[in-house]
C-alpha cells in the first residue's frame, strides 16, 4: 500500500515536472481546454438563470375567464356551478367587476384615469387553476371554457412561460450537443499533446519496457499529465465563467435598477463547479490513456 502510494506520488511529481518543462505549451493547452469548456458551461449558467427568471415571473399557470359585459348574476352563478363540478378544475376565484375596478384604482399612476370613467369598463372575471398544468390540458380546458355562452374572452396566462420553457429545453439540448462535440475535441487535443510527450520520452519507454515495466507503470505519468492538464483547464473554464457572470451581473444590475425588477445572476453552484473540473480532468485522462495505449500497441512485439 505504501509502495503503491509512493509510486503514484512519484508519477504525479514526474508529471508536474514535465508540465513545467514546457511551460508555454502547457499553458497554451490549458487555455485551449479552458476556453473550449467555458463555452458550454457559460451557456449553461445563462440558461439556468433564464430558467430561474421564468419560474419567478410565471408562477403557477392560470386561466382567466372574462365574461361578457351583459352577463347577469344568474349566468355568473351558473358558471360557478359549472366550474365547481368540472373535473379539470382544482380551484377558482371569482373577481366581480366592482372589485376589479377598485384594484385598478389602487394601482399606481392610473387612478386619475380610472376616476374619470363614467362607467366601469371591466367585466366580471374568474381566475381558474387547473388540476393538470401540462400545456395540452390547459389548452383543452381553455378551449372548453371558451365555448360557454357567456364567456367573452379566455386567456391562458402562462402560455408564454411554457413556450419559454420549451425554448429552454431546446437550449439545453444545444448545450449538450456543444458539450459533447467540445469534449471530443478536448480528448483529441490531449491525445495529441501526450503523443508529442511520448515521442520525447520514447527511449525511456522502450528501456522501461525492456526491463520489465508493465503498461500500467508506463502509462501512469502520462495519465497524470493528461488529468492535471484537464483539471487546470477545468479551473480556467470555471474562472472564465465566474468572471463573465460577475461582469454581466454588474451590467444587469444597472438594467434592473432602471426597470425596478430584482434580478441577480447566479454563479455556477458548488456541485456544478466540481463536476466541471472533474469532468475536464477525466477528459484529459481519457485522451492520455488512448494516446499511450495506442503507442504501446504499436511497439508491441509480434
Amino acid at each position, binding site marked *: 500500500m*505504501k*509502495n*503503491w502510494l*509512493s*509510486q503514484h506520488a*512519484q508519477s504525479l511529481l514526474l508529471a508536474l515536472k514535465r508540465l513545467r518543462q514546457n511551460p508555454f505549451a502547457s499553458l497554451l493547452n490549458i487555455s485551449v481546454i479552458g476556453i473550449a469548456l467555458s463555452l458550454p458551461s457559460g451557456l449553461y449558467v445563462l440558461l439556468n438563470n433564464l430558467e430561474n427568471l421564468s419560474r419567478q415571473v410565471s408562477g403557477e399557470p392560470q386561466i382567466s375567464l372574462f365574461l361578457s359585459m351583459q352577463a347577469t348574476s344568474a349566468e355568473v352563478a351558473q358558471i360557478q356551478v359549472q366550474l365547481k363540478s368540472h373535473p379539470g378544475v382544482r380551484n377558482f376565484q371569482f373577481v366581480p367587476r366592482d372589485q376589479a375596478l377598485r384594484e385598478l384604482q389602487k394601482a399606481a399612476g392610473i387612478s386619475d384615469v380610472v376616476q374619470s370613467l363614467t362607467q366601469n369598463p371591466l367585466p366580471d372575471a374568474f381566475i381558474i387553476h387547473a388540476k393538470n398544468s401540462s400545456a395540452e390540458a390547459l389548452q383543452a380546458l381553455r378551449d372548453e371554457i371558451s365555448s360557454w355562452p357567456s364567456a367573452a374572452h379566455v386567456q391562458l396566462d402562462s402560455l408564454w412561460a411554457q413556450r419559454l420553457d420549451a425554448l429552454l429545453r431546446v437550449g439545453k439540448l444545444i448545450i449538450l450537443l456543444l458539450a459533447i462535440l467540445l469534449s471530443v475535441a478536448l480528448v483529441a487535443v490531449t491525445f495529441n499533446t501526450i503523443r508529442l510527450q511520448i515521442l520525447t520520452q520514447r*527511449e*525511456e519507454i*522502450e*528501456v*522501461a*519496457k*525492456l*526491463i*520489465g*515495466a*508493465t*503498461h500500467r*507503470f508506463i502509462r501512469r505519468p502520462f495519465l497524470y499529465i493528461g488529468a492535471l492538464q484537464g483539471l487546470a483547464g477545468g479551473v480556467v473554464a470555471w474562472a472564465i465563467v465566474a468572471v463573465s457572470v460577475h461582469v454581466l451581473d454588474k451590467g444587469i444590475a444597472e438594467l434592473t435598477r432602471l426597470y425596478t425588477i430584482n434580478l441577480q445572476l447566479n454563479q455556477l453552484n458548488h456541485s456544478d463547479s466540481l463536476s466541471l473540473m472533474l469532468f475536464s480532468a477525466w477528459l484529459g485522462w481519457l485522451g492520455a490513456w488512448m494516446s499511450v495505449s495506442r503507442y504501446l500497441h504499436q511497439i*508491441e*512485439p*509480434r
Partner: protein
Amino acid sequence: MISLSQVCKRYPGGYDALKNISFTMQPGELVAVTGHSGAGKSTLLKLIAAIERPTRGSIIVNGQNTSSLRPAAVPYLRRKFGLVFQDHKLLFERTVFENVLLPLQITGFERKESAKRVRAALDKVGLLDKEKTLPITLSGGEQQRLCIARAIVNRPAILLADEPTGNLDAAYASDIMELFKSFNQVGVTVIVASHDEAMLMRLNPRLLKLNRGELAS
C-alpha cells in the same frame, strides 16, 4: 531453467534468422553464444527475453512457455532477467544513480532499500563515486558497466548480455568479462553473446556456435 526446442524465427520479408534451434541450460550455467555477425545471436537472446516471439517452436524459461505468454505477463518474465545491451540503452537525462534505480522503481521497491541496492550495484561495477553524474560524462567502458549495474540491481537469476564488449578496447573488455565471471560464481545463470570467440573463451563457458541461424556444435 531455459530450454529451447525447434525454435525458428523468420522476419517479415522471409529472412530466416534462426532455424531449428534446440538446447537446454541448467541453472548456474555460463553459456557463450558466438558466431559471425548476422548469425542470429541477438535474435536468440531477444527470443529468450521475450523481446521478440519465435515463429515456431517453444522457449521455456523457469517452466513458463514464453512464446505463448499473455502480453500482460511479459513484464513479469522480463524481471527475471538482467539485460545488458551493446548500445547500453542508458537514459541520458537521468543521473547514474537514477539509471540504476529504474528497475527498482518498476518493481515498486521500497525507497530506502532501493538506495542501498543501487549503491551496492554501483560499487560492484566500480562506479560508486559517479552516482551523481550524468551518463554522458562517462567513458564507453563506464557506460557499459553502468548498464551492467542496472541489469543486476534487481538481483536477477539470469543475466543476458548481447555484445557487451562490442565497442570497447581489450582492457575494458576483459574487465567486463571478469564481472560476468564473478556473477556466475555466485550462482547467476549467464548468457553472453559475442562475435569475439577468443574473448569468450576466457570465461570457460559452454560454447554455442551459431552459423547462419543454425546451431553448429
